[in-house]
């Protein structure tokens, strides 16, 4: 394990004079901010926010990053911080919380992550120098593994476990039962044959399911469209009444 001290100093510095920096050189707004702080030789615990905020804005403008949400969010934070620091405060204000504290904490934390990342990259590079066994001969005549036991009841219990484990109603798809419009049409037609008018719910059959309701509704609409019946409602949201239409020429018109 190498001492990580040299790690930080050898961070590839993508910086050219001014703000001309390598576009790919930054892994996010914290990285850019950290770079500016380092570049300006600023004490991280006492960041001149106004100056750094202006530089940050100029930098993202220059880098064409002023459309990137991550960078814009940081720019917004910095400007808010800048405004906060412009507010007057009393000299004897001992309970003053430095509004920069959060930013400082995040920068230090991020710097630490960066350092670990560099350490990891080096470790991986060392490891990559050793090669694992490459060619594996095809397995020989191994005895067959013991026969597998699979149990339907256990599988179904597992299904329930899975369903219970789903945190939110993400499982919307229930196996669809096909609508039985044809059967519903037969029921409605049977009623129309004997009754001049009836409540549509009578055509639902015993113990109607949602599928039955939808099927019957569609059947009635289809029959109405074909002119076999009309549908009326006495009041808004009242139950539909189905009324037989006399379309058959055989039926005598009074």
């Amino acid at each position: 394990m190498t001492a990580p001290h040299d790690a930080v100093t050898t961070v590839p510095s993508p910086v050219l004079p001014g703000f001309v920096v390598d576009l790919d050189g930054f892994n996010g707004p914290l990285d850019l901010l950290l770079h500016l702080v380092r570049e300006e030789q600023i004490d991280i615990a006492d960041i001149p926010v106004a100056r750094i905020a202006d530089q940050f804005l100029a930098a993202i403008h220059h880098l064409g990053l002023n459309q990137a949400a991550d960078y814009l969010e940081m720019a917004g934070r910095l400007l808010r911080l800048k405004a906060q620091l412009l507010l007057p405060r009393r000299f004897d204000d001992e309970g003053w919380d430095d509004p920069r504290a959060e930013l400082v904490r995040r920068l230090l934390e991020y710097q630490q992550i960066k350092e670990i990342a560099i350490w990891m990259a080096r470790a991986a590079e060392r490891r990559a120098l050793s090669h694992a066994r490459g060619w594996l001969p095809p397995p020989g005549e191994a005895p067959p593994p013991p026969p597998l036991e699979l149990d339907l009841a256990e599988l179904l219990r597992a299904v329930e476990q899975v369903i219970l484990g789903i945190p939110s109603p993400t499982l919307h798809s229930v196996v669809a039962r096909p609508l039985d419009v044809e059967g519903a049409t037969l029921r409605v037609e049977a009623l129309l044959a004997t009754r001049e008018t009836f409540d549509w719910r009578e055509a639902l059959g015993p113990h109607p399911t949602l599928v039955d309701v939808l099927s019957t509704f569609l059947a009635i609409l289809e029959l109405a469209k074909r002119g076999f019946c009309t549908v009326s409602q006495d009041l808004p949201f009242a139950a539909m009444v189905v009324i037989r239409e006399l379309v058959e020429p055989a039926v005598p018109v009074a």
Partner: protein
Amino acid sequence: MSSLSPLSQLLEAALFAANRPLTLEELGALDTDASPAEVRTALETLAEHYEYDGHAVEVVELAGGWQILTRAAFAAAVERAHAAQRTPRLSAATYETLATIAYRQPVGRAEIEEIRGVSAGGVLRTLQERNLIEVVGRGEGLGRPLLYGTTPLFLELLGLNDLSDLPRAEELTIALQPHRPEMAEGDDGGALASVEEG
């Protein structure tokens, strides 16, 4: 026996790391100063080293070139131990993943993990090794993920004729909760509601 020569070491490293048998020509590229005869001698020295010390592997020349192989006697022992390690029963986690695939197939790893809330890589490998699931295609979207489905062996072990013999999703809640028969009266909404409770 003396230590391995630098050339023998080079050959050993290459033979070990290569994903295929290496020809004399390829091995010769390791040290362009060495003649084919020297390479062959170094290979034979390497083979002797493995022989002399009673190693479980040997350096052999086969049709395709040179390779390091596990000696047959030990290969069988390794295979046997590997097979014995497999238990005839699946773990609960494996069952749950299998259930997810059975009902959602074709289904990708990401969706399985989203549903189960845990990583599925190892379990998927196990299920594939046991020939209970197989890759049935690739999904749309980023990286075109592999999609999994159940195999004929899965049906065979459960004694099912085809997948439609699995209880339907809306029957399942009923089947799993026989003490709540009123659920059966409800329509699809019943199954849906119980899912949403979860």
